[in-house]
């Protein structure tokens, strides 16, 4: 006869498997954030500012009111998607520095479907068709943009780090061409490179009226859950993680590593494409040149801070969103340029990546297993 503990164990185990790596891994990231804030404070003081006022402003701007909370969630939505994109690629042994380009390409496609599709079809689309179409095509565009470097990696060995960066610049050039040319908003009052506004039927509504936080944020949380399910509950996820952990072993185990690499990159790009798509369909209602500058690099920091685990990514994305959102208030209060946030975030990335430094400073012993993140040019 089984004891009650053993009978309930499948669910409990599964929940614990979801939580334990995060709980275990929390120590170093928290200390990394703390250390980065201290060093950032020193830089602020060095540049002639008041670090305490700065951080008070940062906190108020990020969490101090319902509106601040709503804005933090607005910032967090693309961060969660983009962070998941980079984290998923890391799990598959690939370093996707190209979230930026995939995001921009997804945003352009979502905007195109959003404003032009009703005109092409000569009908008014209902929202329950138009929204999924815009979001779907945006995500697919991101997937396609990432699948190219993925295929080059799998079939020619061209390293994805450089190729995804090249794809970023190509996306940037293409976007500025499209937004200055064929897709430019024809409104005579328009003076900047942007698309026309998307149709009402393609707009994802806000959750509460009067606040900008939208259903895209909820979608981001659901997608985080889906990524966790994909990675740890499906065959494809197992293949992705095996190829990431040891490509040779994966090959001998009969996994089609080339196909897995392309799929991993495509899925990663899909998530990054969603980041851009949500910005267009739920927030800006159009695509504008330069709105996404820096998301790609922030996403790397978020993925690493979250230990490439979906739950960790969500927490890290919320932290980064709070800092970005609070930065504006900080600049207003103390005249310290909001760019200091980038410095602090780079420091967080540094201390998370070089966890040996944190362990050295705070005398923590190494506990968790190291995840293999990238390999040299050969792999």
């Amino acid at each position, binding site marked *: 006869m089984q004891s009650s503990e053993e009978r309930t164990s499948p669910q409990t185990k599964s929940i614990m498997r979801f939580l334990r790596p995060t709980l275990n891994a929390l120590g170093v990231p928290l200390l990394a954030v703390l250390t980065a804030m201290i060093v950032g404070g020193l830089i602020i003081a060095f540049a002639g500012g008041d670090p305490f006022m700065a951080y008070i402003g940062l906190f108020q701007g990020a969490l101090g009111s319902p509106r601040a909370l709503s804005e933090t969630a607005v910032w967090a939505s693309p961060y969660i998607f983009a962070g998941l994109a980079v984290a998923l690629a890391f799990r598959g042994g690939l370093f996707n520095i190209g979230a930026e380009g995939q995001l921009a390409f997804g945003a352009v496609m979502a905007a195109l479907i959003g404003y032009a599709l009703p005109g092409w079809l000569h009908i008014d689309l209902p929202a329950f068709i138009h929204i999924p179409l815009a979001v779907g095509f945006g995500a697919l565009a991101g997937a396609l943009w990432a699948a190219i470097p993925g295929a*080059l990696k799998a079939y020619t060995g061209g390293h994805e780090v450089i190729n995804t960066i090249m794809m970023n610049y190509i996306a940037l050039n293409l976007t500025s061409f499209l937004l200055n040319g064929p897709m430019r908003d024809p409104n005579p009052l328009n003076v900047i490179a942007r698309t026309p506004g998307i149709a009402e039927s393609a707009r994802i509504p806000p959750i509460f009226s009067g606040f900008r936080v939208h259903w895209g944020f909820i979608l981001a949380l659901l997608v985080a859950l889906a990524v966790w399910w994909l990675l740890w509950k499906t065959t494809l996820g197992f293949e992705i993680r095996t190829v990431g952990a040891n490509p040779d072993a994966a090959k001998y185990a009969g996994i089609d590593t080339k196909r897995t690499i392309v799929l991993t990159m495509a899925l990663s790009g899909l998530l990054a494409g969603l980041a851009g798509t949500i910005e267009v369909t739920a927030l800006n209602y159009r695509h504008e040149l330069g709105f996404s500058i820096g998301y790609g690099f922030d996403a790397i920091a978020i993925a690493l801070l979250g230990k490439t685990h979906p739950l960790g990514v969500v927490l890290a994305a919320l932290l980064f969103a709070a800092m970005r959102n609070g930065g504006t208030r900080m600049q207003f209060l103390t005249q310290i340029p909001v760019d200091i946030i980038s410095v602090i975030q780079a420091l967080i990335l540094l201390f998370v990546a*070089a966890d040996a430094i944190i362990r050295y400073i705070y005398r923590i012993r190494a506990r968790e297993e190291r995840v293999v993140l990238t390999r040299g*040019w050969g792999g």
Partner: protein
Amino acid sequence: MDWRRFGFIAFIITILFSVVVLIGKAEISPVVIVTSMLATTIAVATPLTLGALCGVYCERAGVVNIGIEGMMLAAAFFGWLTAIYMNTVFGLAPMPSLLGGVAAAILTGGLLGLFHAVLSVTFKVDQIIGGTVINILAVGITGFLNRQLFFEKGSIFGGNVPHAPGVLPRIQIPLLADIPVVGRIFDQQPITFAAILLVIITHFVLFYTRWGLRTRSVGEHPRAADTVGIDVYFMRYANVIIGGMLAGLGGAYFTLESVPSFEPLMTNGRGFIALAAMIFGNWTPFGAWAAALVFGAAQALQINLQFFRESIPPQWAFLQISYVVGLAPYLLTMIILTGIIGKNIPPAADGQPYEK
């Protein structure tokens, strides 16, 4: 470096030059166009050449460095800042200020090289992550200081950017620069000449000195090198710092030789293209330089097309869209990385931390 690659490079450069000659020949003689293209190509290839040499030193010693972009950006900023300080705050003449700026840029690059070495050699951080940290940190620090020092009220320069002391003057090589028309090629600015000189020096150091032999040995087989008494950590530290200093000189090109101003993100991916040039040059100095010239030629084409904007015939109209030509270096990089123009073979221990 095999001849197939040099052939490919010559072929691409010929095509790029021919485009400009075909467009401009109605107004200007082809010789003048080719000369001017060549002179521009050599000049704009300078940061790519120096960045690629940085990569050669680092990776020959077994350390992958994708932080070249960040090293150049930070060096461009701090070199420029130093030149302005020396000129406006300390009242020095433009020439010493500029040279001080170059020195500061090299120092910045060297310090970031030291930082990368600490991360990758001592702390054994994943080297690609370490490089990414440098890139993000450089963007953040330069953006923050640029705004804090120049644009905020109550900042040191009171909200307005002071004039930089110009750019480094041209130097004419005696005799060669006096040749009619073609002499233009030998009339360049100092960092450009230094880059070419450094290509030759690096080739000599790597393949004809004890230092070079030791560097290559710690990049190919650090265990064997350690066994025969070579200090692997010291060699890696030293070469990454040297590489950083070269990237720093490359950064100085942007703000002290090309234009007398700084803009956030002004390196614009040149550090990554330099890395591609190094890979296409199969980790050799001359190969890297030749590859850098291809990218330089693509950029020179873009610049020269601006001159002939009016006389571009209709069948070439698509070239007027500068975005199309702008894509060339990036597409070229991706083609090169596929290895269809010769397999790229990195040093055997490239990217692997060494445990004593």
